[in-house]
């Protein structure tokens, strides 16, 4: 009997939460934008996201394990999250081979080169997206209008950012051209509420993000509501900038991080050449995370304030 007793350090209770359960919640929160993208762009949308996801998961399993099995491909679901995020950030008409190459780059360069989950500095999905945009800019700026079958030859619409005539209600529901997952503010809002409710998203990040976008737009004399509702800013503020690994771990750090992301997003949009600065804004802020962590340490209990 005695030899079966376990001796371990306290605490003897642990939360049931693990990386797997967190990632599963993030996947659940991605269902509304995914559903809207299928509604808008048809099964093609599902195809792009599924391909991106499977490519990410297999790439990770191959890199991490000698032998692969279904369980190993599932992993801790983090590769799946990267895949869905990356897939949803692509335009509906992205050719399948670009989808796959970007996914492989996301996992290899964005994640495993740094040592895998927990060690990566940059958001892997954004690394994948940044790579594809740099490598094949013309494919990645080919915007299909909603309810049209995307096809490389199809009539393409300009993204709503350069089309200042879009109705705010369309932007809210999502019936505009854009990347798969980012058009519907409503769907993203549902996902955001779920993530905040489950404790995986600190409201400081999206609020700081959108607040900064609004502030810069206001100062720059632009249409604030339009900037908040259009493009990938809100999608990124909820799903990308909140990535735990690549954002600060202190509360104040999270707020500054969100504000920084929003600030650069708006600056790149309004004053830069690239209409969609979101990717670079967040990657830039990712690099500043260690610095933000260091200078936003909370005041320790009983510390004599000097």
């Amino acid at each position, binding site marked *: *009997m*005695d030899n*079966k*007793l*376990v*001796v*371990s*350090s*306290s*605490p*003897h*209770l*642990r*939360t049931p*939460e*693990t*990386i797997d*359960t*967190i990632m599963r919640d993030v996947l659940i929160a991605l269902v509304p934008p995914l559903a809207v993208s299928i509604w808008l762009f048809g099964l093609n949308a599902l195809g792009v996201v599924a391909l991106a996801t499977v490519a990410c998961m297999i790439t990770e399993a191959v890199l991490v394990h000698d032998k692969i099995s279904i369980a190993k491909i599932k992993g*801790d679901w983090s590769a799946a999250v990267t895949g869905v995020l990356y897939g949803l950030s692509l335009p509906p008409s992205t050719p399948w081979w670009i989808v796959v190459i970007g996914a492989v780059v996301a996992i290899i360069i964005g994640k495993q080169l740094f*040592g*895998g*989950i*927990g*060690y990566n500095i940059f958001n892997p999905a954004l690394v994948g997206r940044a790579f594809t945009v740099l490598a094949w800019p013309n494919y990645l700026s080919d915007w299909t209008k909603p309810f049209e079958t995307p096809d490389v030859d199809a009539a393409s619409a300009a993204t709503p950012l350069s089309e200042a005539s879009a109705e705010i209600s369309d932007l809210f529901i999502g019936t505009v051209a854009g990347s798969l997952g980012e058009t519907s503010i409503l769907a993203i809002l549902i996902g955001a509420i779920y993530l905040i409710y489950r*404790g995986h998203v*600190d409201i400081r990040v999206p609020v700081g993000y959108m607040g900064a976008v609004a502030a810069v737009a206001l100062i720059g004399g632009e249409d604030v509501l339009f900037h908040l509702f259009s493009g990938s800013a809100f999608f990124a503020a909820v799903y990308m900038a909140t990535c*735990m*690994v*690549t*954002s*600060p*771990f*202190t*509360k104040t750090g*999270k707020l500054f991080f969100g504000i920084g992301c929003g600030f650069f997003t708006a600056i790149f949009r309004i004053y830069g050449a690239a209409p969609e600065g979101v990717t670079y804004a967040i990657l830039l802020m990712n690099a500043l995370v260690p610095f933000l*962590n260091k200078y936003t*340490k*909370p*005041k*320790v*209990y*009983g*510390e*004599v304030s000097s």
Partner: protein
Amino acid sequence: MAGETFRGGVEPGHFKYTTEDAVEKMAAPSKVYIPMEQHIGAPCEPVVSKGDKVKLGQKIGGSDSFVSAPIHSSVSGEVVDITEYNHPIGKKAKTIVIESDGQDEADYSGGYDSLDELSSDDIKKIVKEAGIVGMGGATFPTHVKLSPPEDKPIDTVIINGAECEPYLTSDHRMMLEQGEEIVFGLKSIMKAVNCDKGVIGIEDNKKDAIENMKELVKDENNIEVMVFETKYPQGAEKQLITVATGREVPSGGLPMDVGCVVNNVGTAIAISEAIRYNKPSYERVVTVTGPGVNEAGNFKIRVGTLASEVIENCAGMSQNTRKIVMGGPMMGLSQPSPEFPVIKGTSGLLLLTENEVQFFEEKPCISCGRCIDSCPVSLLPNMIAHFTENERLEQAEEYNALDCIECGCCTYICPTKRPLVQYIRMAKGEIMAKRRKN
């Protein structure tokens, strides 16, 4: 009944299965194993020898050091051995083994009915002689707490009835069954430290205890029952002071630095019994609980009773018991075998089975920040653990490792199952060792 609260903390669940079980006196065992180390400070040396006859409550161990507390026999009988024996803090310690003659012939009698004829120093002396230590588990000698230096006046005495550890219910039962002794104990402490404000702090999940204590002090205009939110570690000394008074104990400081003295309800009862009946501290209320024990409950158990006998008295343990913890699940110490004695600081014996003893694979930190948000001291447990792991002790120290109260919230909450508090404890140990050297 919304309660006051503090920053951070976690909600690991209640598991208070034994709330309704009135305290039962457990029969004295035939042999008691009484260790000479039952408090923080200098260990005691035996003042009896093998073959001596001893009475119930007779002093058997003492020390000349101020920070120490004498130890008394918990049975009457004969000293059959003085030896090194298993100690629940995970080592062997000098232990006096006494065979009971079953007579319980007491060495003490008398006592004082009221505090009127006692001075502050009398009370401190009685508390010291009775060998009373912090019974919440900290085991700091109580008379030391009652003797703050002149320049540290005390204006608030707090009785800790938070009992924030899941599973444990002994404090709760004592507040229901011995409330009057608690109030007497509180008044004794107030008199000892010349302070006229008393607070009894209780978590809001113990409604009946709150009512009972409120009823008992309704005519005392200088004693207040305060209700706190149910959250772990509400009963941690510094957090309790902050919610009760709004003051923060300075880093590295003591409650007396902000004019407070905190004592557990069990300690208050021990003080009351020492004054009224001259009774030394040789028994205590212990919650025996957890899915592994067949008949859980709250028991008055004599110091030196082996946990194996306690479990026997509770109809044994189930076959799939995998962990025996002295104390609660958040801060208790797991034991390699049930052959260890109940000591003055044993608030609970917790038996966990296969279902509760989970093994998680440790993964790298994902910087979620949950450990930081849960830390009642506002540390960065992830960073301190990281520095310790990489042997960067200076940085661990710079990140205030020494302020950690070892509550375990960070380890509880970490989704990647990092053993954070273990690393921080290690860092604290090494930093202290280094400081002593210099």
